[in-house]
């Protein structure tokens, strides 16, 4: 019963990751790609717990899941700091809106 539930959950998680992979490949901006990578990385922690259930070694795989969640968070923060120009908020609001790039409809 437990194994069947784990297999069904893992298979449907993998199937539901396909649209997010599409967004990573075809995303119009780089931020869409980072967002998709972040979502898939969070779901990998769940899949690691599922794999641990199937191998009967959950106590070991839970530690992997903790490490993976930590790495995922650090990666997202590092990428957003890299793109961040650290302008003060007041200066950003004073900027003319015309200088901003419009999103393509």
């Amino acid at each position, binding site marked *: 019963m437990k194994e069947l539930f784990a297999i069904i959950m893992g298979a449907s998680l993998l199937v539901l990751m396909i649209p*997010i992979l599409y967004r990573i490949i075809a995303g119009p901006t780089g931020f869409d790609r980072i967002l998709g990578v*972040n979502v898939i990385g969070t779901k990998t922690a769940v899949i690691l717990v599922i794999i641990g259930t199937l191998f009967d070694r959950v106590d070991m795989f839970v530690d992997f899941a903790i490490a993976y969640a930590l790495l995922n968070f650090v990666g997202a*923060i590092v990428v957003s700091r890299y793109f961040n120009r650290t302008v003060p908020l007041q200066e950003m609001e004073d900027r003319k809106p015309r200088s901003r790039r419009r999103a393509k*409809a």
Partner: protein
Amino acid sequence: MIEVIASVPVPESANSPGWFLVHSIGMGMGILGLVFFLGTAVGMVRFPDFYTRMHAAGKGDTLSTMLMLTGFGLVIMEDFSITSWLLLVKILGIVLFIFLTTPTSSHALMRAAFEDDEMPLGKNDLKKLRRRLNTSSEK
């Protein structure tokens, strides 16, 4: 029903009705998490704008991960030994960690995108989109 609930704390084997109740709750939480993740996947593909996609991804991803991990923590438990409790506490630790960090990274990404001059869709863009959709459906 009252007997079943009262028999939860001291069950003997993994097949007793108390454990069946706990495992059913865990499986229900896992399936609810899958439903929320379906919403995330559909939103990531269908929404027109980066900020709307981030709305779908941030909220649905956080809630679905928390529900699925808690459900698996309940499904995995089979007795009240110390290792089993430690496992549940570790999984709840991951849940707490994700509850704190996924909104934080969403916020950092949103801020970085806004400072990188990425603009959300305005009213005129939506009008243009709707007009294009109408003409394409007529042809």
